[in-house]
């Protein structure tokens, strides 16, 4: 018999399709026959910790919080490096102290800039 070498691919494709679709179809038929859907306002509620959802999800959020959180990073990074610097202060050469001073000034510059832009005024 004359056949194309691609026949096998077609057969495999059909078998794979049936293999995947038959269980899905059985599950669908089973669900229709033996487990009737019983939706309701509580069952379909979005919140699922037992409490009722209050208000709306899309609320207005003051962007100042975000800016404050960003500016807090200045102090966060500063304390991270200042503490080990302070602990090892007596053993450090002059160059290290100057480098630290430059670093602190660089970081504080951001704070000064934000201050001058008026971000720290709570509106």
């Amino acid at each position, binding site marked *: 018999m004359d056949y194309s070498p691609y026949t096998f691919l077609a057969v495999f494709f059909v078998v794979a399709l049936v293999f995947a679709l038959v269980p899905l179809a059985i599950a669908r038929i089973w669900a229709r026959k*033996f*487990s*009737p859907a019983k939706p*309701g*306002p509580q*069952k379909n509620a979005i919140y*699922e910790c*037992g409490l009722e959802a209050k208000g709306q999800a899309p609320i207005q959020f003051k962007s100042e919080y975000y800016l404050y959180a960003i500016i807090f990073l200045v102090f966060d990074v500063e304390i991270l490096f200042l503490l080990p610097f302070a602990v090892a202060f007596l053993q450090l050469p002059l160059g290290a102290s100057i480098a630290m001073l430059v670093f602190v000034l660089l970081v504080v510059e951001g704070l000064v800039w934000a201050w001058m832009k008026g971000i720290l005024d709570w509106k």
Partner: protein
Amino acid sequence: MDEGLRSELSKQGIFTVKMQELLNWGYNSSRKNSIWPLQFGLACCAIEMIATSMARYDLARFGAEVFRPSPRQADLMIVAGTVTKKMAPQVVRLYNQMPEPKYVIAMGACAISGGPFKQGYNVLKGIDRFLPVDVHIPGCPPRPEALLHAFMTLQRKIDGDSLFGPDKPRHADESVPGEYPLPAFGEHDIEPPYNKAVWEPPVMARE
């Protein structure tokens, strides 16, 4: 098939089974061997429930170790502890949010009757006033062995479910509602004080 023929065939090594029995067996044994409880504890009974799920008592032997933090994924609600009147609406709401089929185990004296706090003004005198409880466990608190026994009892109950016929389980009946009425805070007590569909106060008979 006639029973005589069936037993005659089985003597010859040919076992026959009804399609309905096969479906029931597959359905029930797959459900009863992987019950997913809701991760949900109310009081000291929850400690015993946690102990049951840990290595020493090992609830995993019964296929029920997967405690789900969401009611959407749970089959079984273990009411482990005192249900206060403030908590009752939340418990009922969680139950309503669970998918069918669902089961309830009332664990401990408080959950089944109010227990030592029965006289308290704010304690529900048994969660079976609002939910269809399948297994009650007495004890204050019940030991993990008692919870394991309740699990096995529930498994036996699930095994007895039939997909066909008039005594099919509650969830398979389309006319039975999927949600139970939610109690709310009234002026003096929660309203309604109990769900008439699952519980009625006992009638006092005086002679």
